[in-house]
């Protein structure tokens, strides 16, 4: 067990003796340090350092010199460490981990603007995404979370606004201005590399003929869709094609907005149809306590060997995968 040194009294005694040995009267700093040492709690079992080490000495020099700029944080700007004055302010918060890059975050004004555009002004999500340069999934997530926030405010729930403000002030933020040309936040029309496209194919084609992305897709697989169809914003590609054909940007963008509204309407229609088909096969019985929902199924849809994945019923003899590694046990989509 480490020796229990009575640190405050020892240091106090040392300080007192040092003070009495040195000049009298005490100056203010010495008095303060003496008082501090006498009121320290005596719970630490770690022994004092015996000497002022090189590491501590270098740190003291740094914090008095260049490091003094990092003491005070300017809100709205990041405060990441850098080596010297000549290094520019970077997005690397951890100097010895250069792969960790701090990505900009949308601030509250930007999120409020996105919510207003979608919920108040009724713009299509794809239109908001294309105008501001924010990914579709991020726009949808912002709208959902803002709805939860406003629901909480309506119920009188207290939000952690000081905490959010403090955290947001430490990160690089990105903002938008309404009715002005804004910088895009992130690339929105990116496509994941499809495994079918990783195959090396030698496809003989004549040089005089056009070979389009659709032909390339057919070459990879007869049923594969082209990149123009698989991309999140196919309407944007159509808009660019129209501009290249010679239409004005205004006309093309108007047609884009209409196309996007139409695609959203079609998606909503599909959801409604799916729900109505489910409802057709459901019988609802209300009792005093609960509602019983009976869904019609076909018990013979069990596949050729009786092991279809979407057959109804718990499987006989199948183990529980509760403790298996790599299984995703949380919801993977929003209901």
């Amino acid at each position, binding site marked *: 067990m480490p020796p229990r040194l009575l640190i405050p009294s020892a240091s106090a005694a040392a300080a007192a003796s040092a003070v009495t040995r040195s000049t009298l009267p005490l100056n203010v700093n010495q008095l303060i340090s003496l008082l501090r040492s006498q009121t320290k709690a005596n719970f630490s079992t770690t022994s004092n350092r015996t000497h002022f080490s090189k590491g501590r000495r270098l740190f003291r020099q740094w914090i008095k010199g260049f490091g003094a700029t990092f003491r005070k944080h300017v809100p709205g700007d990041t405060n990441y460490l850098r080596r010297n004055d000549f290094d520019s302010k970077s997005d690397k918060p951890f100097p010895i981990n250069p792969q960790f890059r701090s990505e900009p975050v949308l601030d509250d004004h930007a999120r409020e603007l996105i919510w207003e555009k979608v919920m108040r002004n009724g713009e299509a999500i794809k239109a908001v995404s294309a105008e501001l340069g924010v990914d579709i999934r991020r726009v949808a997530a912002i709208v959902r979370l803002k709805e939860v926030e406003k629901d909480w405010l309506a119920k009188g729930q207290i939000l952690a606004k000081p905490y959010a403000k403090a955290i947001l002030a430490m990160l690089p933020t990105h903002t938008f201005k309404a009715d002005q040309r804004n910088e895009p936040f992130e690339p929105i029309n990116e496509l994941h590399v499809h495994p079918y496209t990783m195959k090396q194919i030698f496809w003989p084609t004549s040089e005089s003929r056009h070979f389009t992305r659709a032909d390339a897709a057919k070459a990879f697989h007869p049923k594969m869709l082209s990149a123009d169809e698989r991309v999140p914003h196919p309407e944007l590609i159509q808009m660019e094609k129209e501009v290249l054909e010679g239409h004005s940007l205004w006309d093309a963008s108007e047609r884009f907005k209409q196309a996007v509204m139409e695609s959203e309407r079609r998606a909503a229609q599909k959801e409604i149809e799916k729900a109505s088909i489910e409802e057709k096969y459901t019988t609802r019985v209300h009792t005093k306590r609960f*509602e019983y929902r009976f*869904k*019609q199924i076909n018990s013979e849809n069990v596949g050729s060997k009786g092991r279809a994945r979407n057959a109804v019923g*718990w499987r006989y003899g199948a183990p529980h995968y509760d403790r298996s590694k790599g299984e995703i046990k949380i919801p993977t989509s929003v209901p």
Partner: protein
Amino acid sequence: MVLKIRLARFGRRNAPFYNIVVAHARTARNDRPLEVLGTYDPIPKPDPYDNSGRLHKDIKLDTLRTKYWIGVGAQPTDTMWRLLSMLGIVEPKYRNTDPRTPPPLPGQPRDTKPQAPQ
């Protein structure tokens, strides 16, 4: 009374999930049945985005096959009889035996104490 329409318990401890099955009466509860007609989740669940507190129970059932088995003489157990009576496939076994209270007249306050039948 050889065939029964009954519930085979699966799920986890304190979280049951039943298969609605047709099986011989003398076989074990979780043995392989003649046919799986559907499922019954006895734990009531709320709808997503519904804060009213309303709960529902999800049951999947092949009514056509169930009617066939009832027609050839399979006997449902008490719980299954209750569920099938909700669908109208069989007559309910147990009636509501709560004391009958007349509905409140318009304008009068609702009386929650059950009154004796007159």
